[in-house]
């Protein structure tokens, strides 16, 4: 563990339900603006849940001037391209032919998604009478689309982004459901420490706000049914919380070896200082009531970063607004922080953005970096009624100014993967 490389965050890009770039998103998170509204992108009125947190009016072509590439991009790939472009511009450095093999890529990517139109076509040609008959695909009129096929490949986002930005080093795509974004950044950190890359473009993207994605979560009963009051939906840690709100978006960070970032005069938001990663091995969708699993992830992240609970000033909670997660996460926080718990500001920015699934951990990592830069813990919006089983020091009513020496970001996924990332102020400030 001796003399390990330090990793700097020098670029941030976001496409979220509360802003199509990082500054707008960050301003709206600080103001507690909600991105939750009745769904607009398709007619969801018949679904048990018809609210969500959509990305609004993103025009990818204004940022990505490659029309052929955009033809290969799904909605979530467009989010990824836009957020990555913003992060690289923000960092003021990007892959050049001579450096491209020292640039790596790590991304939390959503599940394989087949569009409504494509499944409709399969239905029309192969299952018009209900029973699936594969020979329908062989019908010469079947609208076979090789580009649509490419879009469905699990590493299509990786392929599009590495090609567009010219990244030729280590490249990976991961999926551990809602922990994906956090794990992708943890992987990037480890890859850089191993000396396999000098720079990483790392993040996550997802969009399940389509009929099949919404169906998947409706069927599980995991979503908030506040259809009539979307302005109150997604209220993590509130006693009346009733499920999460499905969101979409992308977040990317540019990570850089500390000394070289410093040498080129880059602005360093924060240090990505530690990664904790555990498996609950309890149930597929439930977290352990004691916080087991989440506890190990947070402890590992702090140990990995060399941070004691005493210097943690802010935690960006997973805080999905489900009954189970929030209670379990608070139990874990109390165990990990001990007597420090009253002094650690905690908020879930899912209260504004909803749950970005595979992108959540990546966007929230960017939020932690911005929180450290500005010394602001963003508000846990919509909070009204305390839950005795969620006793943590929530940032309520409005965002809070405080110097943040170190921050943690939690992301826990279906399947039991727990990710915790630790961030440190670049200048080692004192409270």
């Amino acid at each position, binding site marked *: 563990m001796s003399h390990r490389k330090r990793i700097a965050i020098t670029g941030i890009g976001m496409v979220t339900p509360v802003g199509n770039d990082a500054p707008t998103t960050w301003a709206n998170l600080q103001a507690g603006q909600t991105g939750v509204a009745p769904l607009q992108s398709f*007619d969801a*009125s*018949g679904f*048990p849940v018809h609210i969500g947190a959509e990305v609004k009016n993103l025009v990818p072509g204004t940022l990505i001037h490659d029309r052929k590439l955009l033809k*290969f991009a799904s909605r979530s790939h467009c989010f990824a391209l836009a957020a990555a472009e913003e992060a690289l511009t923000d960092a003021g450095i990007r892959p050049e032919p001579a450096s491209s*093999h020292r640039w790596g890529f790590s991304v939390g990517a959503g*599940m*394989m998604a087949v569009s409504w139109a494509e*499944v*409709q076509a*399969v239905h029309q040609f*192969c*299952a018009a009478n*209900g029973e*699936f008959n*594969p020979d329908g*695909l*062989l019908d010469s009129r079947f609208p*076979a689309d*090789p580009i649509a*096929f490419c879009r*469905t*490949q*699990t*590493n*299509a986002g*990786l392929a*599009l982004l*590495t*090609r567009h930005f010219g*990244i*030729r*080093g*280590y*490249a990976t*795509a*991961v*999926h*551990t*459901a809602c922990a994906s974004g956090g*794990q992708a950044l943890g992987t990037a950190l*480890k890859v850089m*420490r*191993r000396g*396999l890359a000098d720079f990483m473009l790392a993040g996550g993207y997802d969009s399940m706000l389509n*009929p099949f994605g919404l*169906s*998947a979560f409706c*069927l*599980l009963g995991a979503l908030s049914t506040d259809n009539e009051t979307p302005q109150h939906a997604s209220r993590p840690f509130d006693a009346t919380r009733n499920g999460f709100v499905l969101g979409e978006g992308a977040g990317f960070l540019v990570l850089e070896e500390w000394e070289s970032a410093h040498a080129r005069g880059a602005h360093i938001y924060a240090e990505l200082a530690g990664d904790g990663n*555990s*498996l*609950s*091995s309890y149930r*597929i969708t439930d977290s352990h009531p004691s916080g087991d*699993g989440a506890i190990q992830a947070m402890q590992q992240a702090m140990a990995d970063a060399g941070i004691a609970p005493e210097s943690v000033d802010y935690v960006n909670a997973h805080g999905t607004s489900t009954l189970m997660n929030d209670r379990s996460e608070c139990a874990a926080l109390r165990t990990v922080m001990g007597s420090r718990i009253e002094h650690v500001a905690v908020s879930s920015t899912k209260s504004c953005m909803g749950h970005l699934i595979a992108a959540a951990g990546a966007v929230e990592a960017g939020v932690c970096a911005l929180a450290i830069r500005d010394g602001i813990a963003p508000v846990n919006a919509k909070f009204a009624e305390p839950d005795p089983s969620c006793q943590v020091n929530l940032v309520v009513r409005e965002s809070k100014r405080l110097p943040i020496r170190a921050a943690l970001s939690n992301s826990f996924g*279906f*399947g*039991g*993967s727990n990710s915790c990332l630790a961030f440190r102020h670049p200048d080692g400030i004192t409270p």
Partner: protein
Amino acid sequence: MRSSPRIMITGLGAVCGAGLTLEAIWDALQNGRSAVGPITQWDATRWPVRIAAEVTGVDNRTLVDDRKLHKITSRTDLFGLYAAGEAINQSGLLPHRETLESNAAAQFNDRSGVFAGSGGGTYQSNYDFLPLLSAAEGDLQKFGSELSATVNPMWLLKNLPNNVLCHVGIRHGFKGTNGCVTNQCVSGIVALAEAAAAIGAGEADRMVAIGHDSAIEPETIFHYNRLGLLAQDVLRPFDRDRRGTIFGEGAAALVLESESTAHSRQAPTLGEFLGSGCATEATGILDVRPDGDGLARAIRLALAEADLSPVDVGMIVAHGNGTRASDASEAVALRDVFGADPPPVTAFKWAFGHTIAASGVLDLVLALIALRQNRVPGIATLNSIDPGIAPLPASSTAQQPRSDIALVLCRGFGGMNVALLVRGIIS
């Protein structure tokens, strides 16, 4: 280069069209027996491609005894769970844990991690919605309102890409560092490389690494075929007459341990992980560079990490998927790194098809068997090496490894290239 602990391999497991045990799969390889046959999962008699290497004659209970799991997982997951179970059994990890005090056992679990490489999803998972689409008659509102009455509430859980990771954890109680790689063909081998790196960095004492996939389904075969990637009869790596690849399915798994923990419990040693390299060519989804750039860089990265020279490598298991472009550029990359005298080269996909996300791990466990047997199996379907590609020492008959070190290559969509080096135990 390497100051981290040595990483030992203490358990192996595999399933594919050629068999349910490594012995059976090895036997097929050695004897030139291919598992490629007519597709049975649907009536493909009118299809341009009618063949694949399916896992047939095996019921789900043989793969995973727990019936409850059959309802909340997919075919690919059963393969992955089976291979993981075999590897864990062989390693003797569980009986060892039984001997520990409860605190030590809890610590053992926290220091035991899992990395899976998964195919990430199938087209046919969406077919569960077809009856609902019929009922809705194109009306989205009706689709939404009849959803709950028509579709299995567990639909999402059945199709989670990280199911194998989740259930290996739940079944065996492992709670350490973990991940699920969804990087198309290189998913499994990247998962294995990350698992080894976790031990190398001291994040875990032992890891289970799994690659699994089940991509034989109508829409996937339909699209691959339209792209000209599939052979209609035989997969012939590096052959003049190669016409494309053939789908397979299955899984492979390894247990990796730090040398000190493996040694302290006197675990069987089946091999040693030496190093890996990973590089993309940034060519987009389908394109492959003809100059083998990414693959050559991946091999050199692996050699550097293992602190080895090309002359140390005793045998090469090539990706050899049988497509024109991939095989030709692979030969260029091998020539680039190994010069005029590479060690014996073989490839295994002719025998059990291209198992996509599982392929790299499956090739790796078989490379360890090849080293143990001191025998590089021939490519039984190779008639005549393509004179148009860089010369390479591949043969239809068996060769002898030059040393106890194997290089395994794996390539995938996205211009992905991964190279991995292992030391075997020659018996």
